Each structure stands twice: as structure tokens, then as C-alpha cells.
């Protein structure tokens, strides 16, 4: 399966992001990015289904929340930054 990873500035912010998404009916998991994602220094992200990115960004925007970089995560653990 393919997922999107929304990079967050802190663990707490990632948790808040996940809560906002869950309230919008979007399943979201807080996690450390896989090693192949080129983010340095104890970063956390929120993982969502590839089908829900657009909805997720709308939900975050409606909640007044910003987000960091977004990566697409492939099944083999590799990823690439995307510009939604």
C-alpha cells in the first residue's frame, strides 16, 4: 500500500494533527518516519492513506493548523517529497 507522511515540527504537534484528522474521519497514525525518508533529527510524522491526503489538508486548514513537508511512502519503505 501507498501512504502519505505529513512531517510535523514536534511530537505534540503530530499528536494534535492526528487528532484533528481523526475527528474528520481520517485514520492517522503518529510515527517516526522510516529511515529512507530524508528527515534529520528526531522528527515525527502522521501517516495517512494515499486516498485521504486532499481531505486531510482541508481538515488541517479548517482547524488553522500548518504542516511540514509531505512525503509519499512506497511499499518498499522508500519515499519522495510531494508538493500537494
Amino acid at each position: 500500500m501507498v501512504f502519505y507522511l505529513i512531517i510535523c515540527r514536534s511530537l505534540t504537534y503530530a499528536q494534535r494533527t492526528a487528532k484533528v484528522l481523526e475527528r474528520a474521519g481520517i485514520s492517522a497514525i503518529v510515527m517516526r518516519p522510516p529511515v529512507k525518508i530524508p528527515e534529520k533529527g528526531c522528527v515525527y510524522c502522521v501517516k495517512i492513506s494515499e486516498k485521504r491526503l486532499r481531505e486531510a489538508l482541508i481538515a488541517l486548514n479548517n482547524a488553522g493548523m500548518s504542516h511540514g513537508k509531505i512525503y509519499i511512502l512506497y511499499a518498499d519503505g522508500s519515499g519522495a517529497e510531494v508538493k500537494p
Partner: protein
Amino acid sequence: MIYLDNAATTLHKPYTVSEAAQKAIRRMTTPGRGGHSASMLAAETAYRCRERAASLFGVNSPESIVLTFNATHALNIAIKSLAREGSRVLISGYEHNSVVRPLNTIGARVIVAVSELFEPEDAVRAFERRLGGAELVVINHTSNVFGYILPVERIAEMCKAARVPLIIDASQSAGVVDIDFERLGADFIAMPGHKGLYGPQGTGILIARGGKTLIEGGTGGNSQLPEMPDFLPDRLEAGTHNMPGIAGLEQGLKFVEKVGTKKILAHEKALVRQAADGLGQIAGIRLYKANNEENQTGVLSFNLRDLPSEQVAGALSERNIAVRAGLHCAPLAHRSVGTLSQGTVRMSVSVFNTKFEINRMLNHIEDISKKIK
């Protein structure tokens, strides 16, 4: 033991508090230190604690809930963020040493808005008179010595209008009196976890909009940078968290949320009323009680004749009744009321105290008053 020293620390907690603390010791590490289940469980618990606190205290974002080790820690962060040497800082006459000592250490110019005990209108006037030129106001929501509820809402309005930063010490009011951070517009509100929030010792909360670091170190984020993150709560939470404490505090907050502060305050006021009525019947008792019950929480100070307060508290302790005597780390409050040399005997209740316990205390004080001459 009949425990009536809840203004220091609530001894009796909901059983879920110790259960949660034990679970944290067995299963959790600390938030932001790895993606493994022990760290993530800690992260989820800490976040729930922030969410509950944010909900209880009218805070828009859980990130504004900074988890500290006690109210003194929280107040030190707040005061040292806003005051510097020579700052003109206006405080009430009922502040604790956790406010007075940091201000003294910084070298701030402290101005006391002197006002009468249990006279909120007098407090408002005192702040009005002194607010001009103040660079910071620090005010106790409720006096730890007398249970006096100061008119923080009105003083917060004044600070807002005059654009003077405000720090509220909610050590005695959190969990008992309603607090709405966003409505008050304060810059910081500091509180302990181990009193009216029924959490374990070693926990506290600072509600913040920003702030300067008191200590620096690992935060589990932005690790490549030599400086502390510029966002909350990470900026003000360096080092490993007190997870057993935070897990317990989360349950304490849940308990307060479930019972409700109005119900808790009503229960405590009823016990103080009972104690005051009973003490009023005992010859030689001098009571520090509000005429208007609205102005007092579950804390009641008294003295027996001119006896040293420690002597009376000692006699009660021998009968297995725990109260507090002396200055309660708040000499300024005693100076304001004229009890600096004698101190006071302070009884302070929690939601777990009963009428039976108050009756027992009254019987013993009556007996002590006859035996000690």
C-alpha cells in the same frame, strides 16, 4: 490519621491515580524518545494529560500545556520569562515565596498592592492605584494561607486594558475554582498537579503562550540544532519527563472533570463552614474567615489565644490530626494580615474529607484549648 493539610498536598487520591502511575513505571519510557511502543505509550498518555488540562482550563491548544515538576518550577519559568533586574513588578499582598523569591533573585522592583483580607473590592482598588508603570503583574488566585479568592478576573481585565503582562499563580485554585485561560488573557498560569488536581507529587502545569527556557537539553525533537526549539511545549520541557507523575495527573484531571469543580468547591465550602461554626464556639479561637463565602475556598486559618501556631498543630498531630502551622511559605500574606509573629494553624480540606472528620477535629481542639493554658 485525619488529614487536613490538602493545601500542601492532597494525600488521598482517586485509586486510578496510583494505578496509572504504576502502569507508567512498568510500561512507559518518555515521549519523543523513539518510535517504540514504550515511548509512544508515554507520548499518548502525556498528550491525553495535556488535552484534559486544556479542556479544564479553557486553553485552545494542548501544546500550551507545559508539564513541569511543580508550581514553583512553573512560576520560575513564567517569572524569569517576563521579569528582569529592575523590572517594576506588582504583586498582591498574599503571594507565596514561590513568587517572592524568584522576583527577589532577579532583582525586580517589587511593589505590593496592599489590601484587606477577604475584601476583593479593596484588592481591585489597590491594583488600580498601583498599575501605572508596572511592567508585570503576578497574582495569587487563592491565598494558600487564608483560602481568600482574589478578584483575578477583574485584575486581568485591568492588565489587558493597560497592556501589562500577567502571571496567575493558581496553586490553590486549580481543580477547585473555574479558570479560563483564554478569557483571562493571562500570559502564564502556573499550578501544581499534586493539590486540587489530585495528581502525584512532582507534577505541575504551566499554561503558556511562549516563554524563556529555565533549563536546556534534550527534547526528542529538532535534535540537530544546538538551541532549544522555539515552539511549545518542547521549548520549556527539557529532559526526561516524570511519566509516572504525568500518568497519575492525567487520571487526577479526569477525576476532577468527572466530579466537577463546582461540586468540589461546594463540598469544601460546606466543611469549612462546619469547621468555622464549631471553632467559633470554642473560647479563645481567633478565626480568619470570609463574611461572604464566595471569597473563600476550603482553607481555613485560625489561632488559639496567643499560643504559637506550631504548639496547637503539634498537639493535634499527637492526636493523629494533620494540619499545618507557621507561615506556610507565605510570610507576605501573614504580614498583610498581622499574623507574622504567631503564624496560623491552617486546616485545608479536599473532596475526600468528611463532616465526621471535621467533628473529630473540633472535639480535639476544644479539648486542647482546655488542657493547654
